[in-house]
């Protein structure tokens, strides 16, 4: 047991491993396929290890990994000469991270879960490019500049695309959103 612990501890120090969950989530969003997503993430680390000496000191490591992953995905798409095929994937939830002392009631959990599902469903209704920009900004919290690097486009394009994606998402969620906003206000008052 002792050896296992030592091994695990030293391995978690490995370069960029802290982003593996985020990269896998992004890969799932792009590929819509678990097996393809796993291959894509693995290949991303292969490329990153080869290229890490070229990583500039002031680079954003997370954004750099995302850029590699996306470029690999685009290369695969070019090879396949086909458009991304969107299929449903079942959710993979790892349990809610509730803060101690702030545990919601069962009813609240149920309502929150419904909201979450509705938002996810609405996001899946967006075009792939809107889904992608929402994923990078809202889920991965990359800055506009980092997103621009990942998507290989100007920062202005990121801003406008994000604005349109949010507007579309808001429109899709309007009935849910008004209820959520009003219940949020009620609970705050």
């Amino acid at each position, binding site marked *: 047991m002792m050896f296992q612990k030592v091994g695990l501890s030293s391995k978690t120090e*490995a370069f960029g*491993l802290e982003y*593996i969950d985020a990269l896998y989530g992004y890969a799932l969003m792009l590929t819509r396929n678990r097996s393809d997503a796993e291959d894509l993430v693995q290949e991303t680390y292969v490329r990153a290890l080869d290229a890490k000496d070229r990583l500039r000191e002031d680079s954003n490591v997370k954004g750099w990994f995302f850029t590699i992953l996306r470029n690999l995905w685009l290369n695969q798409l070019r090879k396949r000469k086909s458009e991304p095929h969107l299929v449903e994937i079942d959710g993979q939830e790892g349990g809610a991270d509730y803060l101690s002392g702030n545990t919601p009631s069962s009813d609240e959990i149920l309502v929150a879960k419904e909201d979450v599902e509705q938002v996810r469903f609405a996001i899946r209704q967006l075009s792939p490019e809107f889904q992608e920009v929402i994923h990078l900004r809202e889920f991965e919290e990359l800055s506009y500049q980092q997103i621009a690097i990942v998507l290989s486009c100007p920062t202005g394009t990121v801003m406008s695309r994000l604005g349109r994606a949010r507007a579309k998402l808001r429109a899709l969620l309007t009935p849910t959103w008004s209820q959520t906003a009003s219940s949020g206000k009620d609970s705050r008052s």
Partner: protein
Amino acid sequence: MKSHEDYDTMIQLFIDEELPEGNREEFLTHFKDCGDCQKTLVEAEAFSETVQRARPQVQAPAALRARVLNQMDRAHNKAGLTALAQIQAAVSLYWRPLSMAAMLCIVAGGGLSISHFRRESLANDFIRSAVANHRKFGIDTSLDISSSSPQEVSSWFAQRVSFPFRMPNAGIASDDHAKYKLMGGRLVDFGGQRAALVVFQMPNNRISLLVSSDKLAKAMGGKITQSSGLRFHARDMNELHIATWDNKGLTYALVSSVAMGSSGSCSTCHRSSATGVAKNKKPQDVVEHVLQASEKNPLQEMIPNSVGVSAGR
């Protein structure tokens, strides 16, 4: 004169922490008196939060993680072995001990390189967290503890964080010569653990200080200045100025829009630095402080005799 629509556009940039500092001040001035903008901001923030809550809790499969780790090990070993083969071919039998030493250096170097990237990544995360919390305080000014007493604030944090919280200086903000005033602090999250955000107010500026255990992140990079045995790392990010340093098991990140090193004087934060220093420090420290001032220490305007130089003492 900006139209209301211009401010409307700024709201999302403000929430995304993408509004340039110059526009930010202008926006906040308008925002204070505009009920429509206040309402829009609350709604836009709530919308963003709703979307963010829908982030799928995706975890990479254990098998994938294991494959990636094996890959790293292989790459690591391959780098070491390739270099070893080259060295062995190049040197004679007599030099074998030397080649073994070189191999060990290469293998150790590879390990250090990975470890360096990891530390650098954590240091950058800490700075990003300090900046994000500094900006967030512009929207939500609530504090978990409101007090101008350093002792009270220290004691409050000490009971709530898992590391031995210390203010940078026991006399901080109680110095009559300081132009800033301790406002209090609040608990924030960093690296999945509680960290302390201490907030100071100046007449036209706000200073925040993120404090965490140095086990989670250490100060790295930036422009390095040494003072009183501490190494300060200074950098600018979107017109914000950040200074980070480690001291006695803690890591500090000071964020402010106060310019660092522009005028070479301590007057930004202190009314009379020389007197202030003399009052609180040993003679040798006073000499060092004056010498640093003459060398235009890039940090002296932000951390002259209170916040940084005497950190943790």
